[in-house]
């Protein structure tokens, strides 16, 4: 479904990604894990057009999408939940959801239905529908960010560290959601710091380190791999 080939990205002089290749197949959950500064977020940004790639190609459903500006990506059915939630803090929960459907420009009826669907997914949001998003707790904001991204009914959802700064109970809820999404036929790509949890729910995973793919394979195999711990905590 999504193919990244030899992608390199640099910020000014600093190289952030170096010849990264990976792919996501329809209907699976793919995790990208790795320590801070490994280039995980940059990878996602490059895919959805927030960051210009230096070289490499990105194919989505067989179409080249590298170089497409971010606001057009959503039109292809590819939705990105950015790191740190980035909900629109000045606007209400419901407005955030409405904005999530900005690009589909469907009739009000349909948007209302989508909103109801998301409220069903996260009843918390319904309770807080008219509250400013900025006043939500971190976990609620993450739910909102996920819901907002789902408002456009994407085929592929990309999540950037959905567990960041969340307490375990929220983490579970978010991860449950990912599994649900998979069940409903969506494809999911998730960048995570919580490596174990990410491996636990994903089908396949890529381990990124300093801008390069260090390991990849079936998640269950990686879970058993001791070298992973070392990637994180270093070795003395």
């Amino acid at each position, binding site marked *: 479904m999504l193919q990244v080939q030899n992608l390199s990205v640099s910020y000014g002089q600093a190289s952030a990604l170096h010849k990264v290749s990976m792919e996501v197949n329809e209907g699976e959950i793919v995790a990208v894990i790795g320590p801070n500064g490994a280039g995980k977020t940059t990878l996602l940004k490059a895919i959805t057009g*927030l960051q210009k790639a230096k070289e490499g190609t990105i194919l989505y459903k067989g179409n080249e999408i590298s170089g497409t500006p971010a606001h057009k990506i959503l039109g292809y059915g590819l*939705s990105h939940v*950015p790191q740190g939630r980035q909900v629109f803090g*000045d606007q209400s929960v419901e407005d955030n959801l*409405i904005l999530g459907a*900005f690009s589909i420009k469907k009739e009000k009826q349909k948007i209302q239905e989508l909103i109801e669907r998301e409220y069903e997914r996260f009843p918390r949001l319904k309770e807080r529908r008219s509250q400013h998003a900025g006043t939500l707790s971190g976990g609620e904001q993450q739910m909102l960010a996920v819901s907002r*991204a789902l408002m456009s009914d994407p085929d592929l959802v990309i999540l950037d560290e959905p567990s960041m700064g969340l307490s375990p109970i929220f983490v579970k809820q978010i991860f449950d959601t990912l599994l649900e999404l998979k069940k409903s036929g969506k494809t999911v790509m998730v960048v995570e710091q919580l490596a174990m949890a990410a491996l636990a729910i994903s089908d396949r995973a890529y381990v990124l380190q300093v801008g390069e793919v260090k390991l990849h394979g079936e998640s269950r195999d990686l879970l058993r791999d001791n070298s992973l711990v070392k990637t994180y905590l270093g070795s003395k």
Partner: protein
Amino acid sequence: MELTDILKALINGLVYGSVYAIIAQGYYITFITTKTLNFGQGDFVMLGSLIGLSTFITITATGGSVWIAFIASLLLVIVILGICGWGLEQVAIRPLKSWHSIGWILSTVAVSMIVRNVAMLIWGRDVLMAPSPFGRAILDLGIMKIRYHDIFVLVSAVVIMLLLYVFLKKSLFGKALEAVAFNRDAASLMGINPRLMASIAFIIAGILAGVGGVLVGPMVHPGAFIGLFLGLKAFAVAIIGGIENPRGIFIGGLLLGVLENLFTLYSTSMKEAAAFFLILVILAVLPQGLFGKRVKEKF
């Protein structure tokens, strides 16, 4: 000084303050979306009032009723100033996007010079009479007299503020605009084109200037050289209120208008000086204006 004097000063203050506030909303809307604003906004106001008055006079001269003339001039001004706003963004803001600094101040000033010169060539060097749809009619309340046009301006200002509020808070486009203002990247992930929104912001700012011009026209005797003063007043209002807070700007406008006019009871000639002094004091104490957000930078 009598109570009616104070009352009159208050009403005058509200009327003028509300006009400044409308013009200043244009600063707000472009500043939040692009972190730039039009330093020549006053010249757009001038342009609005001159175009409005020419249309008004042309239509009434050919036998149209005043209200048709007024609405037609308002519509024409909205269209033309909207285009001007769009053009400004194209020539003076977008090409300087890569500037982190203050190039846009000068580029908008440059555009305002051109606008002023063009207005001078079209309308001449003299100030002109801009008729109000109410003519000179006065409402006599016994204790004081108020021009109908003043009441109309005050009411319009409130209506425009409400419309703007509804547009920003209730319409999808307004929400998108605020979303871009809040977080550009996240907004573009929602499929919102930030560049388009920047254009729209400048179009709205142009329209607000134009509408402000039409309203203020009958109060000022518009002419090619009145822009700088109006723009400066509106800028002061925007800063006092806190440029990122539309309600703050509205309150700031009314406040400045009222305080200024109350000061005329003491001295008519030092009113401006008092206003600027007040601004200095406010900004020394509250560097983000009266209702601005105070943000903590993270390092």
